[in-house]
């Protein structure tokens, strides 16, 4: 009897390679589609059904975008909004994670506070703005409050869910190998909950982003929402559209590229993709 020196079962699956060409073609198709939209837009503009202050040409919008970025007006708006978003999100993540972990650990807290969190999650967070204005006044803190409360609920619920539903099989295996107490928690339960936590953080980010934009629209602080309203007040449709494009781009970048990639990687590694 002989044991072969090497496993006869296939090695690691190939990375990239074949997929690369497919991905490129898909990217090309999307690009062509976008170019098509811009062309149709320009043609509609040229026909001149609507006046240009209601329906500007894509070239006008692009010019406004470039000018705004070059004159730093848009750049300052972007940075201000991002600063607020990151502050609020950092706070929301801290609170949401701790709350979620606590709720997973203490059943009575889950039953009492968990119920409220679940209820509050259904409330669009911008509805908190009047309350925040009365509590904090017309300042940054009010808007921060709205952003935090928008994100905190989904993060804490997802964390609680992830920790509570760590696969029993992992727990069994870990306890059997001698893990217990805080080591079991840190080395098995938390990593086991990570896919769920990341999904919650992604959701929390997009809630925070939406709340921030809504808040800034009603507000007179520098920021993207404010730039939008300024466009409206100046009857400058190019600016409105240019800022909308910026907001979409930032959303795509963070949601899809950043969080989307992390989420996909984790789900793949955890064997949750099929």
């Amino acid at each position, binding site marked *: 009897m002989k044991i072969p020196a090497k496993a*006869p079962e296939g090695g690691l699956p190939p990375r990239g390679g074949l997929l690369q060409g497919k991905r490129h073609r898909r990217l090309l198709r999307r690009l062509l589609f976008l170019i098509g939209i811009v062309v149709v837009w320009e043609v509609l503009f040229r026909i001149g059904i609507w006046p240009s202050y209601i329906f500007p040409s894509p070239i006008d919008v692009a010019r406004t975008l470039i000018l705004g970025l070059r004159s730093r007006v848009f750049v300052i708006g972007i940075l201000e909004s991002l600063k607020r978003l990151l502050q609020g999100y950092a706070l929301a993540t801290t609170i949401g994670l701790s709350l979620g972990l606590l709720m997973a650990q203490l059943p009575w807290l889950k039953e009492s506070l968990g119920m409220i969190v679940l209820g509050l999650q259904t409330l669009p967070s911008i509805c908190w703005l009047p309350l925040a204005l009365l509590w904090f006044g017309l300042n940054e803190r009010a808007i921060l409050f709205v952003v935090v409360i928008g994100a905190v609920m989904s993060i804490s619920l997802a964390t609680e869910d992830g920790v509570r539903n760590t696969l029993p099989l*992992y727990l069994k295996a870990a*306890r059997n190998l001698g893990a217990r107490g805080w080591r079991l928690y840190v080395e098995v339960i938390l990593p086991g909950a990570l896919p769920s936590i990341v999904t919650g953080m992604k959701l929390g980010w997009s809630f925070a982003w939406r709340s921030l934009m809504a808040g800034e629209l009603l507000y007179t602080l520098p920021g993207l929402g404010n730039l939008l309203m300024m466009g409206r007040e100046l009857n400058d449709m190019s600016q409105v559209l240019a800022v909308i494009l910026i907001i979409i781009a930032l959303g795509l970048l963070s949601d899809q590229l950043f969080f989307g990639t992390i989420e996909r990687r984790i789900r793949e590694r955890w064997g949750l993709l099929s």
Partner: protein
Amino acid sequence: MQLELRGVRKTFQGRGGEVLALGKLDLVIPDGEFVCIIGPSGCGKSTLLNILAGLSAPSEGEAYAGGQPICGPDPSRVMIFQDAALFPWLNVQANVEFGLKMQGCAKAERRERARHLLAMVHLEQFARAWVHELSGGMKQRVALARALAIDPAVLLLDEPFGALDAITRDLLHNELQMIWMQTGKTVVFITHNVREAVVLGDRVVVMSPRPGRIVAQHIITLPRPRQIEDVATTQFTRRILEDLQLKEALP
């Protein structure tokens, strides 16, 4: 380490009241024996193994390991599950090191021991691979290495090769026999495959459908390492199967 079950029964709370899953059951597994337990699905084989692992307590009766009552999981008795239960957030090497890390073993020693064990299961070149990159057979090899890393006296295997293709399974039968012959650990191996039980076991314990009871025991004295296609193995398998059918024919 000798394992012993005395008058063990296990009941579960079912929809229509209490369900008897196991019992009443007496079983002694001497130190260093390789015991295979076979029986139909749902006969309580896994329950029995969970009790030996200390992951579940008997409703009645006592379980002992090395003369001491079993009152919880212990690294001296390690279980290997059907779907390996590797931790996907750790790479292969870190999975094998897990038990040692829990024992507070130093990093260099951990790494050395993991490397040695990965070589033993022929996976040294996959030390840095992630769990999702492995095939089913490779996962079970890693699970075996992870269990052996903490040098348990008892290995408890719950249908570990049930989901593998025949070729991989034959290979792992060989490896498991080699490891057992080298280390002399007490092994309890659960399967519903009679042939597999005959290839691996010193003794084959046959359980009845629910509630699980021991209905027959066969001592296998064939020389090792055994192969699934050996004539003697096949003959033994047939004898056990005939015996089972006879028992089923009785009222």
